[in-house]
């Protein structure tokens, strides 16, 4: 199938192109040409007038729950949600059951994804066996099987010596170490950000210090080892400042934040609503503001969703019993538009970078896995979106298997319109 995407505003950060142009793809699912006056015969036309045509969005932090928690999400449903959110590539965290700490599990995920996923799926391997924090996982064989990074997301490595060894290993393999920064002793038993609200609600707090302490440690270890180090879901002002400091020292440090950490804070949490329970917790308005500032200044490089589906039964419990995490894939783009672009904090081009070239740089998608660029010969992964379309998010229509979103019912301005993976449209908004 050939596609001729016509008259869209093509935003391609890698080349700096921002112009009304056409994009043509070939039968092999590759990009043939980008420009005007394109010769296209026998191609299916897609009218992208008044729409943005960008390289396919990349989300480097999702939980697909397969294997082990298929009642909450599968590679098939999670990748369908990714497609519906405009993502063409996702990286899935290893906290499955069994944990992705071996080539066997990595291969299983790669194979399941090849057969069932709507978008490109790249697994992230565990840092330690079972993510138990005491013994390094089979990192080189996971990388050989297709893992693109390592992380003990959700169960961070507390032992600094193990973390040091992991970083050394990662450096040798040229993969990033992604850390969920949480000092588990400081956060023990916590259910929400430690603040006046947590005191009032009688909920145990997770202090910002739990994140700050780990970011500080990790940056020091990154300097020691020379590893590429990436802070997952950054949420505090101190952590943002420390990442900026590390960058100013020339360290290979990067950071992502989530849509919910810039769109929400403790002040907008309905009391005891488990759809607002995640790690790191929603922080203070000042922290959320500092994270936005970090995006504007470049301290924060990437928006990643931390898409974390949980089955309804698990979320319909007492707040302190509920698991942490919320859906994210389908609402990321509209939230980025709402918080960053519409108020004029960042340009549309910069927002596209946050979803494309920046995450690609963090993972190191290059050579055979190169993406995030609209250039002839590369896979035709393309996200078409409308920055103005008005719509309302109905989580009951979600492609995900789960329903745990605080954004249910929210009115959005702007959203994805079509998602194309390797030249094949895998999702279109109703009516397009």
């Amino acid at each position, binding site marked *: 199938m050939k596609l001729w995407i016509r008259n869209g505003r093509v935003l391609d950060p890698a080349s700096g192109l921002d112009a009304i142009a056409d994009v043509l793809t070939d039968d092999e699912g590759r990009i043939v040409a980008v420009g005007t006056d394109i010769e296209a015969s026998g191609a299916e036309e897609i009218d992208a007038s008044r729409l943005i045509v960008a390289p396919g969005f990349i989300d480097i932090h999702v939980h697909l729950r397969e294997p082990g928690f298929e009642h909450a999400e599968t590679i098939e449903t999670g990748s369908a949600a990714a497609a519906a959110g405009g993502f063409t590539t996702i990286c899935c965290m290893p906290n499955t059951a069994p944990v992705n700490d071996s080539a066997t599990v990595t291969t299983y995920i790669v194979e399941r994804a090849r057969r069932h996923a709507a978008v490109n799926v790249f697994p992230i391997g565990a840092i330690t066996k079972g993510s138990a924090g005491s013994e390094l996982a089979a990192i080189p064989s996971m990388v050989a099987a297709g893992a693109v990074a390592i992380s003990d997301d959700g169960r961070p490595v507390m032992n600094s010596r193990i973390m040091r060894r992991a970083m050394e290993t990662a450096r040798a393999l040229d993969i990033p170490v992604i850390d969920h920064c949480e000092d588990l002793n400081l956060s023990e038993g916590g259910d929400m950000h430690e603040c006046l609200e947590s*005191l009032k609600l009688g909920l145990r707090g997770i202090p910002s210090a739990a994140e700050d302490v780990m970011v500080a440690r990790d940056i020091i270890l990154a300097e020691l080892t020379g590893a590429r180090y990436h802070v997952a879901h950054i949420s505090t002002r101190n952590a943002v400042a420390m990442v900026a400091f590390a960058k100013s020292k020339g360290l290979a440090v990067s950071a992502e934040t989530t849509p919910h950490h810039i769109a929400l804070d403790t002040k907008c949490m309905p009391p*005891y609503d488990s759809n607002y329970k995640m790690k790191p917790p929603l922080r203070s308005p000042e922290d959320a503001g500092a994270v936005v500032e970090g995006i504007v200044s470049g301290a924060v490089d990437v928006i990643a969703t931390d898409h974390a589906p949980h089955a309804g039964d698990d979320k319909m419990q007492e707040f*302190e019993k509920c698991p942490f995490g919320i859906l994210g894939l389908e609402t990321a783009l509209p939230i980025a538009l709402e918080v960053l672009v519409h108020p004029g904090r960042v340009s549309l081009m910069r927002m596209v970078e946050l979803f494309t070239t920046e995450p690609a740089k963090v993972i190191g998608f290059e050579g055979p896995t190169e993406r995030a660029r609209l250039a002839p010969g590369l896979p035709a992964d393309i996200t078409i979106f409308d920055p103005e379309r008005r719509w309302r998010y109905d989580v009951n229509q979600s492609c995900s298997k789960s329903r745990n979103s605080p954004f249910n019912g929210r009115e959005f301005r702007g959203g994805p319109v079509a998602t194309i993976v390797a030249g094949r449209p895998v999702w279109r908004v109703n009516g397009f």
Partner: protein
Amino acid sequence: MAKGLLGIEDLDRAELEKILERARFFQPQKNQSFHRLDTLRGQMVVNLFFEASTRTRSSFEIAARRLGAETLSITASGSSVSKGESLVDTLNTLVAMRPSAIVMRHSASGAPHFLARHLSTPIVNAGDGTHEHPTQALLDARTILDRCGRLEGLRVAIIGDVAHSRVARSNIYLLSKFGVDLVLCGPPSLAPRGMCDMAPRVSIEYDIRRAISGADVIMMLRVQLERQHEACMPPGEYFQFYGLRLEHLELAAPDVIVMHPGPINRGREISSEVADSQRSMILNQVENGIAVRMAVLERVLSQ
């Protein structure tokens, strides 16, 4: 959300005054036994206690019966909860039996608030985790009013594990609405600084003598044994620094009263001499518990 009583924080002073005034009406007169009223005849109050409780549960039961309601008490052990049923399923099952109100105690903060979003039956919070215990604050206020005649301008010291106390939270919300000066006191890990921002006129002291100095009311909180490790001090040391002893009372206002939500740990947070002294209001509190809960049930259940 159905009419119930989930906490003190969201009630205004006028509403609280109404309940406290009505509770006075339900207090027994001297040498007079209770009449059984029939205000709530034909209504059923379910007491659902997921946490052990003797005084609160029996107090609610008596209150409901004195108003003519039928009562049914369920405790977690021996109920389907101990068989792994979820909270929502347990409550839905109970609601299908059409009770008029559910009185609920639960170890999780916000459990009744979470249920109130899903159920139409009114819920009375009889203590949720470390969040609120609204009827305790009401009965405490009733007791202070009986003795001091006013709340405005009083100095009240709350001493002990304030951080994990639902009694403290409800009292902070209630008393500060009435212009009381509140002093919270406990070991730093159990009385975090941030708590003074919970309501107006709240301050924190880490020295019990300073906290008690000039106090009209001293509220002692129960030391929860399972939280002892968070106090970061051994029990003997705790009593030495935060236990209330007779000698402390000299620092307080001349007619100071001492309160405790019970059950008390003699020699742990309060000495026997104080607990059994004329200053102690502990049994008055228990007695007022019934009157206050009658007022609350009446407010929740009468049309």
